[in-house]
C-alpha cells in the first residue's frame, strides 16, 4: 500500500469518486483499492449511493419568471413576476391575446345563433336555436298573412308575428300528438315531427348527448378498471415489501433471542466438576 494513500485518507477517496484527482494520485488510489477489500467495498457502496442520487429529480415545475422594472417615478421597486400555475397568458404577445379574445367571442356568438336585425321597429336581437319558420311548417298562418309572404320576404317589422304564430301552432300540434298516445304519435304525427326544425334539432342534440354520455361512461369504466388494477398491483408490491421487511426483522429478532438463550444456557450451566 502506498504511503500516500491510506484507509484513513477519505479526502482522497472522495476526490477519486468525483474524478478530481490527478493521474498519479488516481493510480495510487486504484492500487490501494486493489489491495484493500474494505476500502474497495466502501468505494463501491458510495458509488451505488451516487447512482441512487442520480434518480432524484425535482418536480417538473412550470416556471417562467419575468422581471418588470419600475416605470413610475413614485414606485422605484422592480418586481420579479411569478407566473400563474398552469397556463401563462403573460407570455403571449398582446396581438395574440386580442386574436384569441375575438375568436372566443365569435365562437360564442355562433353557438348562441345570435341574429341582429334593424328595421322600422328598431333594433332586434334574437338568440337560440329557433330558426325562422318555413312556409310548409306554418299552414296556420296562411290565412293571416298575404299569399305573397311565402315567396317574398316579409318586411322586417312584421316578420316575427307569423313566425311566432307558426311556432305556437307547431307546439300545439306536438302537445296534442303527445296527449293522444304513443300509437297516435306513431301513426299520425311523424310528418309534423319531421317538418319541425326545432324537434329535429332537439332530437339531434339528445342523440349527440346520449352518444357522448355512452362514450364518457365507457371511458370512465375503462379508466376505473385500469386504476383499480394499478392500485391492486402496487398494493401487492407494497405488501410483498412489507412481508420482506417483516421477515427480515423477525429473523433478526429470532437470531438475537437464540443468542440470548445460548448465553443464558451457558452462564446457567453448572460448572464442570473440578
Amino acid at each position, binding site marked *: 500500500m502506498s504511503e500516500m494513500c491510506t484507509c484513513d485518507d477519505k479526502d482522497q477517496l*472522495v476526490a477519486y469518486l468525483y474524478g478530481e484527482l490527478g493521474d498519479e494520485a488516481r493510480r495510487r488510489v486504484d492500487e490501494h483499492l486493489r489491495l484493500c477489500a474494505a476500502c474497495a467495498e466502501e468505494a463501491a457502496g458510495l458509488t451505488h449511493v*451516487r447512482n441512487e442520487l442520480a434518480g432524484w429529480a425535482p*418536480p417538473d*415545475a412550470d416556471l*417562467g*419568471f419575468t*422581471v418588470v422594472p419600475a416605470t413610475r417615478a413614485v414606485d422605484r421597486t422592480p418586481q*420579479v413576476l411569478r407566473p400563474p400555475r398552469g397556463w401563462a397568458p403573460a407570455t403571449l404577445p398582446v396581438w395574440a391575446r386580442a386574436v384569441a379574445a375575438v375568436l372566443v367571442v365569435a365562437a360564442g356568438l355562433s353557438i348562441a345563433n345570435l341574429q341582429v336585425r334593424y328595421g322600422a321597429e328598431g333594433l332586434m336581437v334574437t338568440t337560440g336555436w329557433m330558426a325562422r319558420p318555413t312556409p310548409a311548417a306554418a299552414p296556420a298562418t296562411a290565412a293571416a298573412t298575404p299569399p305573397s309572404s311565402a315567396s317574398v320576404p316579409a318586411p322586417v317589422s312584421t316578420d316575427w308575428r307569423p313566425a311566432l304564430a307558426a311556432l305556437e301552432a307547431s307546439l300545439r300540434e306536438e302537445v296534442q300528438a303527445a296527449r293522444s298516445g304513443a300509437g297516435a304519435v306513431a301513426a299520425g304525427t311523424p310528418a309534423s315531427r319531421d317538418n319541425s326544425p326545432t324537434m329535429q334539432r332537439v332530437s339531434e342534440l339528445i342523440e349527440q348527448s346520449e352518444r357522448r354520455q355512452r362514450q364518457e361512461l365507457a371511458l370512465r369504466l375503462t379508466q376505473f378498471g385500469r386504476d383499480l388494477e394499478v392500485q391492486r398491483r*402496487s398494493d401487492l408490491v*407494497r405488501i410483498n415489501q412489507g412481508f420482506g421487511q417483516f421477515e427480515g426483522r423477525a429473523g433478526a429478532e429470532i437470531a438475537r433471542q437464540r443468542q440470548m438463550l445460548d448465553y443464558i444456557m451457558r452462564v446457567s450451566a453448572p460448572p464442570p466438576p473440578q
Partner: protein
Amino acid sequence: MAWTDEELVARSVAGDADSFNQLIHRWERPIYALAYRVIGRDEDARDVVQETFLRAFRALPGFKGQAKFSSWLYRIALNLCRDWIRRQKRTPVVAAPEGVDVIELASAQGPVESIEDLVARNQLSASVAVAMQKLPEEQRTAIILKEYHGLTFQEIADLQGCPLSTVKTRLYQGLSVLRRDLESQGLTRARAAERAS
C-alpha cells in the same frame, strides 16, 4: 447568436430588462432545482427563485464580475435557503407523496416499464429525498452542489465559505450517512444486485 451571461449582465446593467429576463430564463430551473432539493418544498422553492432574481436584479449594478454570474446566483439562493431553514427551526421534510403517487405516475408510464418497476423507482426516489433531508444542511448542500450542479470542490468551498478539505469531509460524511440509511432500507444492495444480474 446566444449572449454569454457576462454580456447579458452588461446589457441588463445598461437598463435592458429583456436581457435580464434571458438570464432568468437560463438560470431559473437550476436555481429552482437547487432550492427544491435543499429545502424540500415546491412552493417555498418557487419563493426562493423569485426572491433570488429580485435580489440579483436590484444588486446588479454592484456586480463587478469577480465571480461567475451563476456562482453569484447560487450564493444568493443558498443564503435564502439558509434563512428559510432557520425560520422553519426544524428539519424540512420532502412531501413524499409528491414522488410516490403511483396512480398518477402509472397513468403516464411508458410501455417498456412495468408497474412494479415504476413503483420501485418511485419509492426509491422518495427514499433518497427523505434520506437527504435528514442530513445536516451543510452536508446536504455540498452533495447537491456536487451531484446535481457539477461544481468543483473549490467552487463549493467558495460558496459555503469553508476550506476545501471541509467540503470533502462533508461530502464523505454525507454520502456515508446516506449509504447506511439506504442500505438499512435494503435499497442500494438490492439495486446493486439487480444491476449485477
